[in-house]
């Protein structure tokens, strides 16, 4: 429980004059659900983007599972075991739900051009396994009946679930969710909570950015608060909730 999976070391990032991240250091332990909260524009998404290689930090860096993460190599992050969803859902809209998840298997499979052309036994077996796994994952997030629908025709809640299924298809050690409950009603949020809890029980560490404070405080083992790009506090929910700086910066507002 106490082994560190991801460590951020003084990560800094600015956009022109905006200091989006000010030397943020935090550590996520294997097996926990870790919450990252903060007001709009606090730098939460930027933190995700730096970690997953979409942005190159100006300073600092990340250590993941004992080895540094390369900046500017998004596909490497997934290879190493970091999967993510996006605040503004990014699915492959004109592919079916099943195909979306199948794409998620890309990084854990290896068939190339020649396998595709000659359809040898190994390629066919791999393809069947990809399909099976994708099917299982659609069941796991409970949208199996939408398997053959185009991703962009799914309801908002189902799209969020599909994005999680696609991320899980990469066999992540760490699953990063960027405001998964945004726009969901109370029932959907409760179901999402159950799903996230299940994912953790099945052995995947979860990093959760969320606006819904109640959800975060109830679900997370530890919580970090960002404000104006700086880390305010990192502790268990009970302590964070009572912290004066947090109440001023965020909860009280």
């Amino acid at each position, binding site marked *: 429980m106490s082994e560190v999976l991801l460590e951020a070391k003084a990560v800094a990032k600015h956009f022109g004059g905006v200091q989006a991240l000010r030397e943020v250091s935090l550590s996520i332990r294997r097996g926990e659900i870790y919450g990252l909260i903060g007001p709009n524009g606090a730098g939460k998404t930027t933190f995700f983007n730096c970690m997953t290689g979409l942005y190159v930090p100006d300073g600092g860096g990340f250590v993941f599972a004992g080895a540094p993460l390369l900046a500017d190599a*998004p*596909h490497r992050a997934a290879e190493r075991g970091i999967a993510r969803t996006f605040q503004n859902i*990014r699915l*492959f809209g004109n592919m079916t739900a099943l195909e979306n998840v199948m794409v998620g298997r890309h990084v854990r499979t290896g*068939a190339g051009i020649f396998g*595709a052309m000659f359809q040898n036994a190994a390629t066919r077996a791999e393809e069947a396994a990809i399909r099976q796994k994708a099917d299982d994952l659609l069941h796991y997030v409970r949208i199996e009946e939408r398997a053959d629908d185009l991703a962009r025709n799914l309801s908002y809640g189902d799209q969020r679930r599909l994005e999680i299924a696609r991320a899980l298809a990469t066999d992540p050690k760490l699953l990063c969710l960027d405001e998964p409950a945004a726009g969901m009603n109370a029932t959907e949020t409760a179901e999402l909570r159950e799903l996230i809890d299940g994912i953790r029980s099945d052995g995947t560490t979860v990093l959760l950015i969320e606006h819904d404070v109640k959800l975060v405080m109830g679900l997370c083992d530890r919580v970090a608060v960002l404000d104006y790009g700086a880390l305010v506090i990192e502790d268990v929910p009970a302590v964070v909730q009572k912290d004066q700086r947090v109440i001023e910066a965020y909860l009280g507002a």
Partner: protein
Amino acid sequence: MTSRFFRSAVGIGLLAVALIALPFVAALGGQAWVRILDFAILYIFLALGLNIVVGFAGLLDLGYIAFYAVGAYTWALLASPHFGLHLPIWVILPIGASLACLAGVVLGSPTLKLRGDYLAIVTLGFGEIVRIFLNNLNAPINITNGPQGITLIDPVAFGSFKFSGTTQIFGLALSGPQKYYYLLVTLAILVVVINLRLQHSRIGRAWQAIREDEVAAKAVGINTRNIKLLAFAMGASFGGIAGGIFSAMQGFVSPESFSLIESIMVLSMVVLGGMGHIPGVILGAVLLSILPEALRYGIGPLQTAVFGKMLVDPESLRMLAFGLALVLVMRFKPAGLWPSPTRQRELAEAKS
């Protein structure tokens, strides 16, 4: 289930009979029509190659004909009196395909960070550079023979069986173009099968994912750079093979055959037919290669019949008709004449 199987078996049977009979039907109108048929199939080949780049991976390539040129000149230089080399097909075609593939990688590596219009401009420039090279590589050492091109190129041959000239088989006289037809149809079927298999493979899905959302594709671990490069390399290899056959079939190549308009032609076939949809691309290639020829042969006599003399040069009317057809199709069928069901649905929804 069985009746569907039976029906598709009958369908394939009929198609096979039609494909076998076609060159004899075309020959009724003269060998010129068989040659037009040959070129139609060569264009199917080319269009399907470009479809991998444009249709599957969503990368706009305006210099595709350069790879065709590489393949064509490879054959011309390795099987003609120009260097006195006469290598067999199973040596030349792999070399041609590899060189074209290499050219694809050379073009792709520095440009794959670009998207859309920018990529189009760079590839357009690349196509022209290759053509200009071919035009000027006759001094100080004469490699390509410059604008005069290379003549007396060996035809395709398997052992002593040559594809040029007439041969008697089972009491049937087969002309050169007719023999090439069967070779080309065989190759085209192969390319269709490869295209279909690629489309529904791990790599094909990765191409589509990149086309849909490159950032999301990266986030699930697709090395977008390499996968895009793969599309370039694959498309280029097909272009190289088509170029080799072109060279052998013509017996003559010159840089003129590889101008920008040819790239645009092949791209039009892909777009007009239905980007990313293999049957559509085939339809586009057939229409755009045969209709202009039909017009060429139809317009002249028609004018003389109606007006008693030639009023407008058939060649310019042909291009006018071609342009008009393009505009009309893009206006009324923007997804192409035969788009994939998904794409069709997409546009229908966008309209409503």
